[in-house]
């Protein structure tokens, strides 16, 4: 199918363009000697390339829609890619509000990690199940993604604020926590790197295991460190697993997912370790000087503004539209499904963020931590709830 090829090529082009744009945004920081003018030009080129990249990704979205006959929002690959696009869109919007090029240096790579993460999921065109066959799919999912994309910017600004403001001269509790946040980004990279390596090697191992009363098969794409609970290796000529996943991990493919997590942690930790060895200091400490030229106030303002914009949009998409659709599809607008509960938790959390900020004066650092945790909750809902906690939203 030509359209499908075109579509995935456009996505690839978008990814490369984001990478190039990041380099230009990087150029706005480094040079102290270069004049203000030069920095402005680099920033302008950066945002232009970002917009072109965004248009390419929009092209991916439209061509894939044309190819499959439904908006590509139906599974993990499609949704996470769309979320990455929403993050870039949010960055573009916020960029034009504040003209802060440095933001791109952090926001774009993180959005790229998100898109790369998406492409680790099966990306074949898949037909739509009857439950999802509704116009509300487009309305609900896209609003949620845009809301989360804008909240992502608050995370980025909050993270930048913390990197800038937290004292890195000696090890403290605060900079250790910050380092932990940065380390968790490396785990994503670890996941992407290990999945990519073994997918290039075409690795495959099949296990048979029991889930409740059914006997199921699961295919490992990463060498088994942990086998499924009570699983039996069917493939010949591959290394035996070291141990079995604990019994309480349940649901389809629990063992395989656990194995993937182990690989992500191992690979991520190695990459992190190498990074620290090269830098000879904490990653946070290495990033800090980059942010010397940014005003902390401005980061704080961006962090608040993006919550102020993202929160209502998220409320609308993640709770209101979600409830309307649930009413139409299942006859109940609220059912305490884990995904729904975590959307509510996200909403409560950002409501608390706004209350603490507006009426108890939690600005700056406190706010920054909250912005980071808030996005952590969003990611938890996206990854852990979808893939691990069973529920109506398990697509992948």
């Amino acid at each position, binding site marked *: *199918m030509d359209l*499908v090829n075109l579509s995935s090529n456009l996505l690839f082009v978008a990814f490369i363009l984001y990478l190039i744009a990041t380099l230009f945004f990087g150029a706005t920081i480094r040079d102290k000697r270069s004049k203000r003018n030069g920095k402005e030009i680099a920033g302008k080129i950066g945002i232009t390339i970002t917009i072109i990249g965004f248009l390419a990704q929009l092209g991916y979205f439209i061509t894939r829609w044309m*190819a*499959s*006959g439904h908006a590509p929002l139906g599974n993990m690959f499609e949704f996470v890619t769309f979320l990455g696009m929403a993050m870039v869109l949010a960055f573009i919007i916020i960029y034009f509000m504040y003209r802060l090029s440095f933001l791109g240096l952090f926001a774009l790579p993180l959005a790229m990690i998100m898109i790369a993460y998406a492409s680790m999921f*099966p990306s*074949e*065109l*898949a*037909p*739509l*199940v*009857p*439950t999802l*066959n*509704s116009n*509300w799919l487009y309305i609900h999912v896209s609003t949620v993604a845009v809301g989360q994309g804008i909240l992502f910017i608050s995370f980025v600004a909050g993270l930048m604020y913390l990197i800038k403001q937290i004292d890195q001269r000696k090890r403290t509790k605060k900079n250790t926590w910050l380092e932990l946040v940065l380390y968790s980004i490396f785990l994503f990279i670890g996941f992407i790197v290990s999945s990519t390596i073994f997918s290039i090697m075409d690795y495959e191992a099949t296990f048979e295991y029991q*889930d*409740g*009363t059914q006997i199921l098969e699961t295919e490992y794409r990463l060498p088994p460190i942990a086998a499924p609970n009570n699983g039996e290796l069917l493939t010949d000529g591959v290394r035996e697993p070291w141990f079995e996943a604990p*019994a*309480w991990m*349940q*649901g389809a493919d629990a063992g395989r997912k656990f194995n993937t997590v182990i690989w992500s942690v191992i690979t991520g930790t190695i990459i992190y370790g190498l990074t620290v060895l090269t830098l000879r200091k904490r990653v946070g400490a290495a990033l800090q000087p980059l942010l010397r030229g940014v005003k902390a106030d401005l980061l704080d303002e961006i962090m608040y503004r993006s919550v*102020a914009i993202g*929160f*209502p949009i998220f*409320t*609308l998409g993640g*709770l*209101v539209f979600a*409830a309307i659709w649930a*009413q*139409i*599809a*299942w*006859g*109940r*607008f609220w059912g*305490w*499904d*884990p995904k729904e*509960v*975590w959307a*509510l*938790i996200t909403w*409560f*959390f950002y*409501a*608390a963020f706004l*209350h*603490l900020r*507006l*009426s*108890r*004066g939690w*600005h700056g650092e406190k706010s920054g931590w909250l912005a980071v945790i808030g996005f952590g909750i969003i990611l938890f809902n996206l990854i852990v709830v979808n893939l691990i*906690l*069973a*529920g109506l939203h398990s697509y992948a």
Partner: protein
Amino acid sequence: MNKIKCECGHVNPEGTVLCEACGKPIEGNQHIDGNDKKLLLNMRYEGSARRSQTYRKSIIDKVWSFFSSVKVGVWLIVIALVASMIGTLFPQQQFIPQNAESRDPAVYYEAQFGIIGKIYYELGFHEMYSSWWYLLLLGLIGVSLVICSLDRFIPLYKALKIQKPKRHETFLNRQRLYSETEAVSETEIEQVKERLRKQRYKITEQNGHILAEKGRFSRWGPYVNHIGLIIILLAAILRSTPIMFTDEYVWVREGETTVIPGTKGEYYIENKKFYVDYHNPEDERFKDAIEQSGMVESNFQTDAVIYKDTNTGLPGAESELEKILEYPIRMNQPAKFDGYTLYQSGYQPNEFSSMTFKIHETDDEDATAVDSFTVDLFEPESEYILDNGFRIEMEQYYPDYYLDDDGEPASETNFPRNPAFVFLVYPPESSSPEVSFIGIGRNVDATGENEYKIGIQDFETHFVSGLTLRVDRTLIFFGLGAAIFMIGVIQGMYWQHRRVWIHPKNNGLLLAAHTNKNWFGLSKDIEKAIEKTNIKMVEDRQELDK
């Protein structure tokens, strides 16, 4: 009540921090808003008298102050958050997977998750979201919402209504944006007024004192959105009453017409046909994905006809069904009639509708039929008299056969999903019956001496469609609450309440300004207004909290 009279003549209620009319700090009350330790006045509630900060003696006062605290509200939210998180750790009772070895919660949690699962179950987390303490928590958040809002809204509203353009000097020089100018001409003041007016400020004057104000309505945003939330909580309470909310489930097999439960016997549904359609595995677009994941359904559909019984008035009267709706009910396309909504919710494939049995001689290896009969599984007869002189009595019928805990045959449901029978076979001219037990994959000759054997010759199956009936009269309130909430959030978040005060003093003036957010925007407004005049630009004297 100890009313406080200000030097401007206005009488303020007890507990007022800044005079409602002129803004002069009232002595002895400055600690309430923390003004005593700072240069700048706390303007959050305009220094109005809040009940929670004024009366703290009686039990009611204490309860009121407790719930009016934002800190308490946030803590309640945090507790609800943590509890909700724990509730998703393991599946809730209704989400225990169908294929679990035991769906009995007392067994399931411990078997599946060990000791933590047992604790989870014992503490009631398996049906947490309907537990009394979780609902109480939501209720407390509701109370906190109401009290927080009332405590602040009423005095704030009064203070903003009463405020006068003429403000006390202290009020101005303790604002965040402030400047003093020695000499200003009348025309310059006129110019400033005109420019502020152009920026859509509303100007009011009193003896040369000027107040320019815009966006006051944004101050009501938080209260509006909290009203929306309160409506949602009230709707949730209403929903627990049967008048407002009905939830029933009906199974209806193909070809059957049955009364819909929850409609007081008034409505009937006929299932003309049920479909499960699949995506074509040959479809070029989806071939790869279907190959990996297996067949994917594309549609569940019940071709339904809804009837209304027009003869329900008389008890015992025969029903007279009048067709009111013919509709294909699908996922995402429920049928609606007279306030009721029917949703496609499930189906039961391959339920048996009829079974045909044959009789043959036990010794006959070819099992040539001597005679045969057909049992309608929904209306089985007690006796079948066959053409060749056989008479069959149906001794037992188990529509959904299983062996119960005592090892006795029983029926798990009333639906013919796994039918089994005990037949008494009377051969022609014989009065002593032979006993045969027959079911799917079972054929037992109890005595071992039967001359004739019964076998399943043929069967017919059908789909049974599962439909959920809902009446939810609370939806409108939820919708209203959500709409009001969204309006309130937007109103409070995207507009600002900006005020600029001009206070003539000798030949010059004092200039001060306040906004509830976006100080930068307010400074810009002022800059524009005083452009090319002698008036000094206001200075931002923000004090950062540590």
